[in-house]
């Protein structure tokens, strides 16, 4: 047990993280490509059209995974930020910062695909549906986090301040979600909710699962790659960076 925890602790050291991430990224990248290839083939070619929505429902295969990713990455970012702030672990700070752009991108995809799915389904690009509205506010939270991080010159202060913001944000996300839902039910006239297909065909479910995994693998690969760059920037004066420079192209 104790040996194991020492092992884990080793990866919080920047040099070890850098090496480990460098070895892992190709694997995650390969998995991303393979899963996307299978998922896209199943989703766009094999899966039959929906009996009500026709082929437009195929947007679901990217809409749902990116929406999940967007929400989950925000929580993960806040967790890393909290770990970095409380236990002063530099790698956790770097991970929190590295997650933000990918999380914002995923949230944006969820909104974009939601709008394009909404046009054929609801007749309009945008409805103030509870879920869409919450996602929009989530995107604003991401943008605020990144803007605050970018506005503070001192790295350590930037990490700590934006960590506070991420934690405040993560406490607020459920409150925002429920208040938006509440607001939405009060204004029933304008709201149209997505009718969840009661019986989702197995092929659709499997495809959705594969696409979700693909989104996961992509996010992990990109976040690790970004974290590696951040580590190099922060540790540019350390000797291990110079050692790595000589071996890498």
């Amino acid at each position: 047990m104790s040996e194991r925890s020492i092992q884990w602790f080793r990866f919080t050291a920047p040099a070890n993280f850098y090496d480990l991430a460098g070895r892992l990224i190709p694997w995650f990248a390969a998995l991303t490509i393979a899963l996307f290839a299978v998922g896209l083939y199943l989703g766009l070619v094999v899966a039959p059209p929906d009996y009500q929505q026709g082929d437009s429902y195929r947007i679901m295969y990217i809409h749902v995974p990116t929406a999940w990713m967007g929400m989950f990455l925000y929580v993960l970012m806040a967790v890393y930020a909290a770990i970095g702030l409380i236990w002063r672990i530099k790698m956790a700070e770097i991970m929190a910062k590295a997650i933000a752009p990918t999380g914002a991108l995923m949230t944006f995809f969820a909104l974009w695909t939601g709008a394009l799915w909404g046009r054929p389904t609801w007749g309009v690009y945008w409805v103030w549906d509870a879920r869409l509205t919450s996602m929009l506010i989530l995107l604003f939270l991401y943008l605020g986090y990144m803007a605050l991080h970018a506005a503070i010159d001192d790295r350590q202060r930037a990490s700590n301040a934006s960590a506070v913001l991420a934690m405040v944000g993560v406490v607020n996300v459920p409150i925002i979600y429920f208040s938006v839902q509440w607001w939405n039910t009060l204004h029933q006239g304008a709201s149209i909710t997505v009718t969840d297909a009661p019986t989702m065909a197995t092929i659709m479910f499997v495809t959705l699962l594969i696409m979700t995994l693909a989104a996961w693998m992509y996010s992990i690969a990109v976040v690790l790659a970004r974290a590696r760059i951040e580590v190099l920037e922060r540790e540019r004066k350390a000797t291990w960076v110079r050692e790595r420079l000589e071996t890498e192209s």
Partner: protein
Amino acid sequence: MFRSLFALLRRDLTLALRRPQDALTVVGFFVVVVSLFPLGIGPDPEFLRSLAPGVLWVAALLAVMLSLERLFSDDYRDGTLEQMLLVPEPLGLLVLTKTFAHWLITGLPLVLISPLLAVQLNLRVDEIVMLMFALLLGTPILSLIGSIGAALTLGLRGGGVLIALLILPLYVPPLILGAGAVDAVMHGASAQAHLSLLGAMMVFALFATPWATAAAVRIMLD
């Protein structure tokens, strides 16, 4: 301990009374923004009435947000804030006191001036009473959440614009509940649920935000 907090409150209020233009600017902003809406939308009384809760709340929210920059900036510039880190009282209570003073200077005037603007937008008496009550419960939440943003942007260039991006998304729940309460009365429904949630939110903010604000002040002064 309460004596020193009271002294801090008195000091902040005295400073604000010496420079009343700061508080008046916020009220002026509120009045001007609300008065601009009919010019953009059109003078139809019924339509304006139906928009009034949202317009008044959004304007109040923007007015509070604009005033946030001043919450800590003066004390930050002259070093008072740094001194506050050294006193024995918990920093959370100190920032809470400062936030309360800030609300008395900016939030309360908004509540008091709101009936005048509500009349402009053709609200009835019972709706105006509800509006004032909702603002009375809601503007402290705005000040409390805003204090986090004010602390996080201490000493940054373009801090004012940044506060908007950080804080406005967090203002969504009080906006929905506050405007919803007036809306409910307008449609003959009970606003009790809105008000209880708004009250719960205020209590929660009262206990939770001073910690975050104090942490942010410490980080930015580090």
